[in-house]
């Protein structure tokens, strides 16, 4: 178990860095799921759990410095526990959420505690010490690694046995309740997206996308292509309108001038 916990910690640490530095997005559950599966010895379950968790975390991306429940820990702990306890992925989300929220809190704390470091950056800048500034950045990236690695290590190493014990003692309705909640939870991610994106003038496109899937069961790529087609049409119509408007406006000016 120690080897597995250390490998999970390493994976979590690297993914914790990627969440802010590099941003290849291998830190998303859809990728981490399979990797955790490889470490825990059940690739397929890991892959499927990762896919399920991905949908739940879909809207939870760090925008403008606001921290959602940590996707790295959510993906890794969720998948690992789904494999250890042989639970449905949607139930595993319920187990992962407290850890994901804990890391979210730690990252917020880290961003606050790192503020005083800027005084050091100022001093280095004044002295022309660019190497010092580089070191501060390496130090910051190291912190991301440590926070994620430690929080991922603890429940896997100390809690896995206890966790499967707890799960077998929990009444069935709690498990199926967590599973139901896990199925609903993508709604929160989508609501966060809507809060940022939805303006009155765009509601129609939202309706189109919904209807195409609800009634016609189209795939995501098909919806994206239809959205693109609408966007291109909209672009050309608007462009022509602006040009026509400009022409008319120019014409008026000339008429006034004469």
């Amino acid at each position, binding site marked *: 178990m120690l080897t597995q916990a250390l490998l999970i910690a390493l994976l979590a640490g690297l993914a914790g860095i990627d969440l*802010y*530095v590099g941003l*290849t*997005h291998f830190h*998303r*559950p*859809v*990728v981490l*799921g*399979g990797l955790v599966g490889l470490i825990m010895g059940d690739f397929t379950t890991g892959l499927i759990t*990762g*896919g*399920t968790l991905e*949908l739940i975390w*879909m809207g939870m*991306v760090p*925008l403008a*410095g606001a921290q959602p429940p940590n996707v790295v820990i959510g993906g890794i702990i969720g998948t690992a526990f789904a494999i250890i306890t042989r639970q449905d992925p949607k139930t595993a989300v319920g187990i992962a959420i407290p850890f994901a*929220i804990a890391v979210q809190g730690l990252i917020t704390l880290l*961003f*606050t505690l790192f503020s005083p*470091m*800027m005084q050091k950056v100022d001093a280095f*800048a*004044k002295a022309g010490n660019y190497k010092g*500034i580089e070191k501060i*950045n390496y130090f*910051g990236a190291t912190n*991301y690694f440590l926070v994620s690695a430690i929080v991922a290590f603890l429940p896997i190493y100390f809690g896995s046995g206890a966790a499967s014990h707890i799960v077998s003692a929990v009444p069935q309705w709690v498990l199926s*309740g*967590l*599973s*139901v*909640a896990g*199925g*609903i939870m*993508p*709604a*929160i991610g989508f*609501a966060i997206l*809507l*809060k*940022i*994106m*939805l303006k009155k003038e765009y509601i129609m*496109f*939202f*309706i189109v*996308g*919904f209807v*195409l*899937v*609800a009634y016609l069961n189209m795939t*995501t790529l098909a919806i*994206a292509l239809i*959205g693109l087609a*609408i966007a291109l049409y*909209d*672009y050309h119509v*608007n462009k022509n309108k602006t040009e026509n408007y400009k022409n008319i406006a120019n014409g008026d000016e000339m008429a006034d001038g004469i």
Partner: protein
Amino acid sequence: MASNVPYTFENQTEAAGLSRHELNILAFRSLMLQASFNYERMQAAGWLYSIIPALRKIHKNKHDFNRSLQDHSEFFNTHPFLVTFIIGVVLAMEEKKMSRDAIRAIKIALMGPLGGIGDALFFLTLLPITAGIGASLAVQGNIAGPIVFLLAFNVVHFGAVFGLIHVGYGTGVKAVTKLKASMKYISRGASIVGLTVVGGLIAAFVNFKITYVWSMGKTNIKVQEGILDKIMPAMIPLAYTLLMYWLLKKGWSPIWLIVTTVVIGLLGALSGVM
């Protein structure tokens, strides 16, 4: 702050241009943009990290170099995939020894809009689409899921990071007006695609079903299939998402929405309704 005192470069000679290779190194370093993220100045030190090699090349005069380091440690925050465009523009200006004020103004004028556009383009459009496609393969146990996601996402990601530094540098100051003109169209188009996709994703992936069966004498009516789906498929997922949206706008934090959802799930399972 020292920046209140106007500063002109001691060495006013234009520096030699940056090579493609040097620009690519800066683009690579920009991956560290958020390494030292903090609430006080956000990406400032990461921004500084990205451009250090270019500043060293441009400002051989020690005072000019130190001064430039200080200016670029001011507050900075933009989208990490589009930052290289700003790097390109700003370094073109540093190289031409334009005034400190002009450089700062351009930096600030670009970082806000590009931050918003980047979020709309990458985190609200590219990510949901590629991750949605990847996840729908992964839930079927198909290994192509994560691979397709990583490839599709990063082709665009690194294409933007390594492409835009050359675009930004090449067009220099001229790029600012050029971008401002098309900014409106880019963000409108991205919003249209993004919202169409989100509308579809809600119907596809929010799994909220009533399992309750209504018994009246000998007739059993399945509430979900018999009534709700007849009115409109995916009606409850849509309604619940809009409720979450409304609560978010009311100022609820996502964490409370998660807690509420878990409670609803538990109550639903306990009562046998869901």
